[in-house]
């Protein structure tokens, strides 16, 4: 039996869905401690495993509105992390293979060379998210910015813009969905995560 679990997980997931950063930090802290030793074991300690965790949680955050509807967050998170790990692994293996072509006496120290994965992949995802936000319609972008950059609550945004709370909530949800669709169209598969999860369980 597992000796560790997050007793208020459900509550946290609901708060995160509303954009609560403190709740996200608590969730991150807990699961970081679970994933980190695993990734150290499977991806080696250092930059690569940290990058995998970072990308995994970017994916969690960008799917935040969907989190409360998950039956089992933990299982879903492990699926997401496995997917990111597998992508990094494939890149690494292809890269190793290319290196072999250049030298038969490869210094074992060189095995520690990193693939361009971290830079291109993670940075590209971040750039793509920035682009996706930039492409939102002006009204959506404004509300998204008030929520994210200014850290305003749904109520505060609603009173600032004289809109109903429900409207603000809808706009935020539509925006995050549009961002995911943009990422998906760019080939980063942010939508697939949830779809394949529901198929599996």
């Amino acid at each position, binding site marked *: *039996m597992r000796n*560790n679990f997050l007793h208020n997980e459900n509550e946290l997931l609901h708060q995160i869905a509303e954009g609560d*950063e403190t709740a*996200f*930090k608590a969730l*991150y*802290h807990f699961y*970081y*401690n*679970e994933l*980190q030793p695993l990734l150290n*074991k*499977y*991806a*080696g300690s250092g*930059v690569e495993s940290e990058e995998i*965790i*970072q990308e995994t949680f*970017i994916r969690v*955050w*960008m799917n935040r509105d969907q989190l409360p509807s998950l039956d089992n967050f*933990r299982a879903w998170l*492990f699926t997401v*992390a*496995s*997917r990111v*790990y*597998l992508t990094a692994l494939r890149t690494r*293996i292809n*890269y190793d293979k*290319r290196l072999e072509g*250049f030298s038969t006496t*490869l*210094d*074992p*120290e*060189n095995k520690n*060379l*990193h693939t*361009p994965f*971290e*830079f*291109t992949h993670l*940075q*590209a995802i*971040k*750039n*793509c*998210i920035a*682009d996706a936000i930039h*492409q939102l319609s002006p009204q959506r972008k404004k509300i*998204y*910015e008030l929520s*994210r*950059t200014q850290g305003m609550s749904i109520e505060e945004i609603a009173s600032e813009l004289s809109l109903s709370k429900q409207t603000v909530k809808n706009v935020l949800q539509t925006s995050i969905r549009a*961002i995911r669709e943009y990422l998906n169209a*760019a*080939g980063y598969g942010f939508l697939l995560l949830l779809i394949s999860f529901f*198929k*599996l369980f």
Partner: protein
Amino acid sequence: MKQEQLIYLLKRYADKSITAEEMLSLRTLLNEVQEETLIEAISDQWEAESQAQEYNHSKPADVHQQVEAILLTDKLSVDTGKVRELRLQKKNQWYWAAAAIVVFASVILLKWGPASHTVITDPHLSVQHDIAPGKEGAILVLADGSEIVLDSAGKGNLALQGNSQVIKLENGDLTYVTSGNKNNTEEVFNTMRTPAGNQYKLVLEDGTKVWLNAASSITYPAVFTGKERRVKIKGEAYFEVAKNISKPFLIDVEGRFDIQVLGTAFNVNAYPDEKSLNTTLLHGSVKIKATADAGNNAIFLKPGEQAQVAANGNIRIEKNIDREKVMAWKNGFFNFNDADLQEVMREVARWYDIEVVYEGTPPAIEFVGKISRNLTLSQLLNGLKGTGFNFKVEGRKLIISK
């Protein structure tokens, strides 16, 4: 697949104790087992392991910094901080030079809004004004010669061509929707042109999808009313041709050769400054014939093969093709595997809309690795820095020396 076997191999790979034979098994598993099955096997294993392991207590301060970085990802006034370590490596014909290049660009500030620009402060970088990467954009030339600039602005109905409505969709794609009888009308031709630094996607009236790379063009009828579907291209384009057995799809490439398509996906790279004009088939079937060839010497391509048309019109079939490299541009990357410096720079010039000039003989360097096309020019150059050449940027000119 045996889950235990996969997990065993992954662990051996991770602790670098894997034998050549085991590596082969691992590669085979990764290539042949379905992605979802692999993911399920790994995540099940991890869940089981995580329940057995001691709970690891990491320092709250470290974790705090990491999570802040994640939360910054979707904040508009995003400060990307230091550019992550980039390691791009130079290939040498005789031995592998061990140097991995680790580069940091010190501070990058991204500002949003109408005067959006990127400021790079790196004393080692002789780039004053950074050059943004290419973007979605094209010029549509209508049948009457009038031009419409397609960029992120403006959506909806653009023009009526014959009895086809040209529509720009919510996602920015251009599409043609025909109303009424399409058989008794004459073909009305449109041209889509991408300047350097732009790429675009359009959907032809028959449902064929075309991705146009930078500095390229395609001329096509607004409505395909003839017995054949004929288009002309220059530069580079990727096609996913809609199946229609009764109406063959024909592509005239620069007046140099024709591609006859039988419902399929393929990439044509026909930039005039490249060594050969390359057609790479991903799936389906295509037939290629030099325009000057009056005879019947057509060549059929199989999936994964590339036809290389040389300047003298000879067609060569290359069977061992790196598909990922061919399709990298469409997927948002530069793939520099086995590319020499000049090849790399030709692609960079088209994407950043710059001119590349060599001082003296161009250095003979080959590369491996891939880089996102979303980076600014100086971010990209930073990644290439240290591979054995020097560069400076003056206006839109990139000067390379040994």
